[in-house]
């Protein structure tokens, strides 16, 4: 099995799709010569040319709208929004146009567009360049939302996102770009809407997304030393949500921790907790614990940033609370 970084895995999905399918192209700010602010599309201009690797003006609303228009005309564009913080500028197009057109046209139109974006703290980018805004978009009927945490998942899911006939908001995490992982020789599409059990356990289920998947796996190993057996599940697709896998895991372990980097309040984890308490009520032996960032803008100062966002020890503390060992 070849090993790719998360960054290379994204690039591999894009390049492979573009090689085999003329309908697929990418667009975004500084993605061509510069290779994107995170270097994800580096080298793609040379292979595919500027018609298919399109630099856009610095207007997220304009580039999102152009991508939606191309999608309506039968293309499969992948638009990069440099920071997910800037999705707020494209929100009109994503929320009011992309998400609605198939429904409002009675199915006459489809919008097979992907909005790739990235965010996340851990490198001191400040309050406007590191937010985790997935909760804004899972709230919108008509959008699919993906948040992959490993090279294998990001490649297989991006592939499925490109070939999904609905608009997909595709979140990547800044600090995951350099991580390496085994991927299949050939791209294996990962179905949208299916969770992944990273680790099996019997006492507590930790449902985590993005960077927190890795933090949760660390916490699970720590917990194991205390005799607590932890199952770690990554939903991978936030919308639609693989409720069945999450609920059956919690029915097995009777305890749940929901963990993400976004602020806890009104976060994606709140919805997961609601799903679990409703569908697994009679199986719960402890309150569902939530782990997330403190309700504050992200500080520039590294020490402060570190204080605001959650880490493995926060997940571990939550695990211990659920088994009454805190």
């Amino acid at each position: 099995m070849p090993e790719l970084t998360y960054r290379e895995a994204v690039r591999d999905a894009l390049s492979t799709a573009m090689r085999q399918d003329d309908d697929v192209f990418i667009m975004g700010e500084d993605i061509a010569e510069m290779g994107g602010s995170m270097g994800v599309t580096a080298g793609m201009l040379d292979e595919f040319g500027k018609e298919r690797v399109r630099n856009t003006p610095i207007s997220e609303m304009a580039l999102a709208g152009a991508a939606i228009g191309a999608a309506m005309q039968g293309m499969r564009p992948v638009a990069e929004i440099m920071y997910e913080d800037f999705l707020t500028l494209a929100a009109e197009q994503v929320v009011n146009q992309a998400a609605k057109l198939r429904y409002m046209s009675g199915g006459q139109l489809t919008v097979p567009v992907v909005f790739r974006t990235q965010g996340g703290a851990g490198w001191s980018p400040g309050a406007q360049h590191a937010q985790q805004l997935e909760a804004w978009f899972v709230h919108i009927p008509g959008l699919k939302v993906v948040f992959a945490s490993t090279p294998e998942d990001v490649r297989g899911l991006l592939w499925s996102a490109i070939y999904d006939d609905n608009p997909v908001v595709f979140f990547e995490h800044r600090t995951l770009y350099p991580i390496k992982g085994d991927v299949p020789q050939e791209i294996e599409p990962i179905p949208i809407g299916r969770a992944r059990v990273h680790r099996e356990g019997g006492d507590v289920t930790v449902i985590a997304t993005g960077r927190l998947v890795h933090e949760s796996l660390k916490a699970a190993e720590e917990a194991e030393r205390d005799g607590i057996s932890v199952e770690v599940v990554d939903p991978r697709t936030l919308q639609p949500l693989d409720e069945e896998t999450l609920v059956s895991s919690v029915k097995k372990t009777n305890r749940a921790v929901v963990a993400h980097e976004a602020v806890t309040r009104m976060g994606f984890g709140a919805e997961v907790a609601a799903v679990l308490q409703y569908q697994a009520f009679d199986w719960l032996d402890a309150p569902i614990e939530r782990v997330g960032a403190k309700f504050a803008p992200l500080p520039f100062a590294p020490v402060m940033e570190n204080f605001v966002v959650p880490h493995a020890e926060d997940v571990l503390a939550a695990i211990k609370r659920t088994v009454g060992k805190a």
Partner: protein
Amino acid sequence: MATEVILPRLGQGMESGTIVRWLKSEGEPVQKGEPLFELDTDKVTQEVEAETAGVLLKIAVPEGEVPVGQTVAFIGQQGEDVPEVAAAAPPQEETKAAEPEAVEEAPQQPAAVVSGNGRIKASPLARRLARERGIDLRSVRGTGPEGRIVAEDVERAEAGGPAPVALPTAPTSTGEVERIQLTSIRKTIARRLTEAWQIPVFQLQTSADMTRVNALVARLRERDPDVRATVTDVLTKISAQALMRHREVNAEFTDDAILLHPRANVGLAVAAPQGLVVPVIHSAERLSLTEIAAVRSDLVGRARESKLRAEDIEGGTFTISNLGMYAVERFTAVLNPPQAAIVAVGATEDRVVPFDGGTAVRPMVTLTGTFDHRAVDGAPAAAFLQTLKESLEDPGLAL
């Protein structure tokens, strides 16, 4: 908020413990993991460590017996208020008085933490389990955070706690695999049996005519109805005598020697609610049948109430396991190390046997001995079993 220090459950079947003394005084800072107080239980005296760091704000129970799960102290920040102690810890005398009866019958007073509006604090899972198994949550003591009843507490209550108030109408199967968390006693049983399984053993079997033993038991009951003698008592006595005659069976294998014990301390395998226990009748060779019956009755009774003390289960040199009451004809028992022998007793049942030159229907029992071959060879073990058979068939000779 101040953290409650809860009386922990230290081992199998522990319902309460006695605080001997505090190793920290009020107002003293405490590190996580530092010894906090000395706790006496059925089995051991142990130092209990602090689970959180802070200042020992209040000792709610200075000493005495306390049920598992009760608040005994508070740890928090200096100057912090602690909740009313009276609410958390009932006066000591009351606890002492209430404890012994509470175990036997339906509870007089709620053991569960009940909030102001009368709602019992229990997890949804605990509620469902209690509902399915017909257990009244009011009778269950919660050991979860802030006294919450969690699933484990319900399982414990079902296994050994107070009797369910309402019997389940018809046990409904949910169609799902049921998961029963291992209790500490179950883990101990599993570990010890796995160890025992490593020992090279052999089995010998014989059957005995129980006509005279039955007559003897009937006579004993007639003479002393208060002490209800049983076949097990006769078996205990006869085994003890046989062990004294065949001391090589009353043995223990160690790395550099075989130990032959001077007394016949006979263990009886008892199915206690929380699992198998083996209380020991010490020096059974010196006791009369009536004395053995009295000791046995006391031990088995306490085993079923999970009230055995350490000395009740220690020092056994031989074990009897009797499944006769379940109509088991014969079976082989797993050795109870470090003992070198165990005898499995089946049901006394009428069998057609050769008798007096013809055939007859006689009450017969089959005994199966399991022996540690490292300590005992086949011939002496066979001789021991033969003595058992002869003594059962003619108990007068053994006594």
